[in-house]
């Protein structure tokens, strides 16, 4: 896994990288507009942050309360330590009902557990029903964004894909036409399905209910037709009280897409008449994250994607360059927690500009956590030699002011005459696409002293 290498591939197509950047900035701008309609926006963020922090600090109690209440509603509650156990549980439920066809609505958790390939190996058809997810599924790709799974794909490419799989007209790429084709194709899948799998946006401890937010209505159709509903959720999705949702639902869609709320905000309290409902509670590394003070607040994430839309690195490198289920700033915190060695480049895919922290609806200190990861990664000796050696050299230089000044004065004199290969090489990744500025003959401190002197007179 290597973010810089993947990002380099992405930006080779300059026009496309620019288009990607603009698409996401457009979403970020919509978020700003929506946030500004509420004078209490900052207060909402603060409340949301406090509710999540409280919940995480009492998580075991709330999980017990939730599972007891859900059971009272007639829900079968399951617990999974990791992704494998989650997949086994889901499969065993499906086998009991002889399920052959599943419709799934968006769930980053099942992506994290790689549920689709697991079930497909057992001969079960899994159809992702969110339009963006269906597009990436037909392309055999993972989503590149947690809210906008197909944000990296152009409509012409969707046109070609649908022509191949859904028999749309060759060359047709009108979004309305393509969406209509997907609607008809997926209607059939909804009607044929033996079971519906959904993710969970929020689970309410005091009632035992789960809440799912979609714009398309896919979670609703997928659970209203088949007689089996399996809801899969990470254990951090809990809120204590139903009225806490007032806070989160006001923040979620506004932060995600700039909508005041998603089209459908569905509250499932037990199965409908004649049907069966299961909830699978999944840990998969979350309890471990809870123990790490520096990264604990990443468990507050409500998966709105705002940090991705605003991130200058994400926008210019694309979601796939992270090679993680959740990309972008929040993903760069979660992925190294799972496997530090594999994902050590991700916390470095960040300019520490802090924009993610500014837009986060639950006030996660994202860029501070990314910085903390960098320190931890360095301490664990995971950085490559070029990085550690140049860091050590820089550190030595900064600790010896006389040497610093001497080398500075030499450098200023000779830099302009040095051959290019000495200035532009592997040790200077900054110079890959940029020219060094013209170096002034006088150092900053000299210029500063001179300026002060002139000013004081």
């Amino acid at each position, binding site marked *: 896994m290597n973010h810089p290498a993947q990002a380099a591939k992405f930006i080779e197509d300059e026009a496309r990288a620019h288009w990607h950047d603009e698409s996401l900035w*457009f979403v970020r701008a919509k978020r700003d507009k929506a946030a500004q309609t*509420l*004078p*209490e926006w900052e*207060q909402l963020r603060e*409340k949301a942050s406090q509710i999540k*922090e409280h919940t*995480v*600090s*009492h998580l075991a109690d709330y*999980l017990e309360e939730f599972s007891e209440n859900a059971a009272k*509603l007639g829900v079968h509650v399951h*617990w999974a330590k990791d992704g494998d*156990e989650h997949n086994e549980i889901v499969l065993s439920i499906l086998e009991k009902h002889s399920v052959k066809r599943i419709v799934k609505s968006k769930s980053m958790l099942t992506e994290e557990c790689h549920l689709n390939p697991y079930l497909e190996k057992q001969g079960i058809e899994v159809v992702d029903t*969110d*339009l*963006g997810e269906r*597009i990436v599924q037909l392309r055999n790709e993972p989503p590149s964004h947690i809210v906008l*799974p*197909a944000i990296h794909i152009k409509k012409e490419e*969707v046109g070609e894909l649908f022509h191949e799989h859904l028999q749309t007209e060759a060359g047709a790429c009108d*979004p309305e036409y393509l*969406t*209509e084709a997907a*609607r008809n194709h*997926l*209607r059939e899948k*909804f*009607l044929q399905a033996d079971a519906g799998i959904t993710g969970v946006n929020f689970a*309410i401890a005091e*009632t035992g*209910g789960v809440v799912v937010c979609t*714009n*398309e*209505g896919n979670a*609703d*159709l997928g659970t*209203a*037709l088949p007689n089996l509903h399996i809801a899969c959720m990470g*254990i951090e999705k809990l809120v204590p009280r139903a*009225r806490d949702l*007032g*806070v989160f639902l*006001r923040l979620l869609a506004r932060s995600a897409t700039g*909508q*005041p*709320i*998603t*089209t*459908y905000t*569905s*509250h499932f*309290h*037990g*199965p*409908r*008449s*004649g049907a069966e409902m299961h909830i699978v509670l999944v840990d998969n590394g979350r309890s471990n994250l*809870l*123990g790490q003070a520096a990264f604990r607040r990443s468990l507050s994430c409500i998966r709105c994607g705002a940090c991705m839309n605003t991130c200058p690195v994400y926008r210019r490198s694309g979601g796939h360059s992270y090679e993680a289920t959740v990309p972008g700033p929040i993903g760069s915190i979660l992925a190294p927690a799972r496997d530090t060695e594999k994902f050590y480049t991700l916390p470095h895919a960040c300019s520490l500009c802090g924009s993610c922290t500014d837009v986060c609806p639950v006030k996660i200190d994202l860029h501070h956590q990314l910085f903390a990861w960098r320190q931890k990664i360095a301490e664990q000796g995971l950085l490559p030699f070029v990085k550690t050696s140049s860091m050590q050299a820089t550190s030595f230089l900064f600790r010896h002011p006389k040497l610093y000044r001497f080398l500075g004065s030499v450098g200023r004199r000779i830099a302009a005459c040095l051959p290019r290969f000495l200035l532009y090489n592997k040790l200077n990744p900054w110079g890959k696409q940029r020219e060094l500025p013209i170096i002034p003959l006088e150092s900053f401190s000299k210029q500063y002293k001179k300026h002060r002197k002139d000013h004081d007179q």
Partner: protein
Amino acid sequence: MTSKDHILNAIRKQSAPKTDLPNLEGPWIEYANLKSQFVDSVAAVGGECRSVKNFQAVKSELDQLPVFQSAKKICSLVSEVVSGNVELNEIADPHDLEDVDFAIAAGEFGVAENGAVWVNSGTMQNRAVYFISQHLALVIPGNQLVHNMHQAYERLVFPEPGFGVFISGPSKTADIEQSLVIGAHGARSLVVFLVDEID
């Protein structure tokens, strides 16, 4: 040890500092004109809201709607407005609702800040009707509007099994190049009727 105990123990072993649950007192946004804000919000999310005098007026408004005029199969859960020709109680399997063109249902209240209508279907087997119908009309009492989501949740209790949903506008997607398309999987259009006189 069961996985449940394993997970709960793993969590309890960690010592996250205990913090308090905040109060949710606000102040939260309230609008000078509740009704017009709601009407505007429904329009902003792609729906349409009409304020009418009584059930009869709902019927005559519906009669003017081209999608209602051309609807062959109509399912009504508000018999005072129209009787329809699909009897939900007689449908044994929700799949049989696949060709419903128009559904009319009651909502409990509307939320001015986002145009959402709270619809409660209890444990009804055929709740698919809200999502599978090509077009949807929701009827709510004109005086049942709240300003914001906090007020909405003050009204909601979940004492027993059931299904409830906030519906804000028609089904939509922007998954192809961020182009908004109305009519993804659910209703292609949504009309909300605010009825002044409901007995």
